């Protein structure tokens, strides 16, 4: 009877369409990092919807509403911890996913467009991370916003829509909240849909060093693997939320610059120490560099040992970022905007 019901559901829901073949190596951690990132994003959406019931996006009350949530609401601290740690885990898996795609040259013909979409998703995820940092409205949030507004101001008319002058009388925090809970997630979800569509359309890339065609498995097997990987990600997030509470300061003090940004943004803090306009030029240069990769790299070779230049660029990119993050974490501020 159970089998009959399963068959009826499979027929009615069209599940048999998921039985298409994909390479067997997709059932490995390094080829499931995108799926793990998607799991974290799912956790972020669900926990974010619940968090939104308790958050007041008003400069006067935002910080206090979070303190109230954490201190007074039953399981409020756990909910906020899950949202925070899901964001942290997502950052790590997303970065590793991008590194894996570069390492295996999966951005090459015919998958260039999907690389560009992936970079777009990454940029919007970082924007979500930034807006989430601002929403807690403590000193770190205020300083992050001050830096952002400084950049927006320097961008002239292009930056105007991002400033308070664009909609006078409306607290910027309200607009950031709107972007964080609706505009950005909608864009990201649409782009993820497109990303998945092109993965299906172009199929998962074969192993670069494979001599024989890879053995195939049905996609449903990969889904089962992703389910296990996703549950592992959920467990990790829950464990972190149970043990380490995310930082939450008091209301900000105007005009001071005493905190450091979250580790994901510390590299730009270090660059800013060297040269303040880095804040303006570094992000577009990095994004432009990432977007240019599939256009500039027309070499058909995909095996990493036969791509010394690409591997040198990758290693240099990682080293510079890690060095900047470490330096930004230990150094004190020496600049002023």
């Amino acid at each position, binding site marked *: 009877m159970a089998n009959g019901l399963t068959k009826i559901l499979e027929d009615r829901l069209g599940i048999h369409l998921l039985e298409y073949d994909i390479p067997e190596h997709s*059932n490995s951690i390094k080829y499931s990092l995108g799926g793990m990132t998607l799991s974290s994003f799912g956790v972020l959406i669900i926990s974010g919807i619940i968090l939104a019931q308790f958050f*007041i996006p008003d*400069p*006067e*009350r935002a910080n*206090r*509403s979070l303190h*109230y949530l954490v201190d*007074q*609401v*039953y*399981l*409020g*601290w*756990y909910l906020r*911890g899950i949202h925070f740690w899901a964001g942290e885990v997502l950052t790590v898996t997303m970065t590793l996913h991008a590194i894996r795609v570069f390492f295996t040259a999966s951005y090459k013909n015919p998958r260039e467009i999907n690389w560009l979409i992936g970079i777009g998703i990454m940029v919007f995820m970082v924007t979500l991370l930034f807006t989430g940092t601002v929403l807690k409205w*403590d*000193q*770190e949030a*205020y300083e992050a916003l001050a830096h952002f507004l400084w950049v927006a101001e320097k961008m002239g008319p292009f930056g105007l829509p991002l400033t308070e002058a664009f909609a*006078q*009388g*409306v*607290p910027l925090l309200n607009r950031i909240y709107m972007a964080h809970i609706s505009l950005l997630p909608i864009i990201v979800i649409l782009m993820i849909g497109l990303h998945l569509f092109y993965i299906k359309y172009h199929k998962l890339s074969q192993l670069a060093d494979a001599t024989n065609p890879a053995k195939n498995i049905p996609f*449903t*097997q990969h*889904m*089962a*693997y992703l*389910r*296990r990987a996703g*549950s*592992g990600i*959920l*467990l990790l997030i*829950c*464990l972190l*939320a*149970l*043990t*380490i*509470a*995310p*930082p*939450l*300061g*008091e*209301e*900000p*003090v*105007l*005009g*001071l*610059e*005493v*905190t*450091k940004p979250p580790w994901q943004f510390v590299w730009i803090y270090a660059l800013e120490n060297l040269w303040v306009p880095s804040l303006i030029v570094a992000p577009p240069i990095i994004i432009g560099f990432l977007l240019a990769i599939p256009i500039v790299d027309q070499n058909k070779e995909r095996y990493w040992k036969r791509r010394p230049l690409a591997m040198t660029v990758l290693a240099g990119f990682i080293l510079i970022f890690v060095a900047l993050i470490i330096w930004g974490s230990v150094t*004190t*501020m*020496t600049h002023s905007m």
Partner: protein
Amino acid sequence: MGKYTFFITISFIFFAQNAIAHTGHAKEPTSIVVADKQSSIDSMYAAPEEKSDPLGSSDLFSPKDIFMEGEIVSNEPNTKTDMKMEGSHNEHDDSNMPKVVSAKHKTVETSAKGYGVAAGITLFAGLIFVGLTFIRPGER
């Protein structure tokens, strides 16, 4: 002929509609409404006066709500200057600088509200992961 008939018909409908709208009576004199004088700094998003705010007397939006306890904070970030700042390159600048302590990660205390339930949820997530790892349904 047809053109004149059309014009007269339209004119009749227009006047008849006007008469019906005013129930056939002469128009009443229009009352003169004097607009309240607005400040030049008023925003179109400014909150209405308290007396016209139906929720003005409710605790939800009053400064006495749970998130406004104690002092009333302004729209601008806190500008208190009676505290000393720590951990900044500006530390030497002014002894009257406000004190700002950077928020850090903290270990969750077991006395946190619902800690036992949170531990249970985590354990449940762990059981699901362990179960899927051992049984691996659909993976083979």
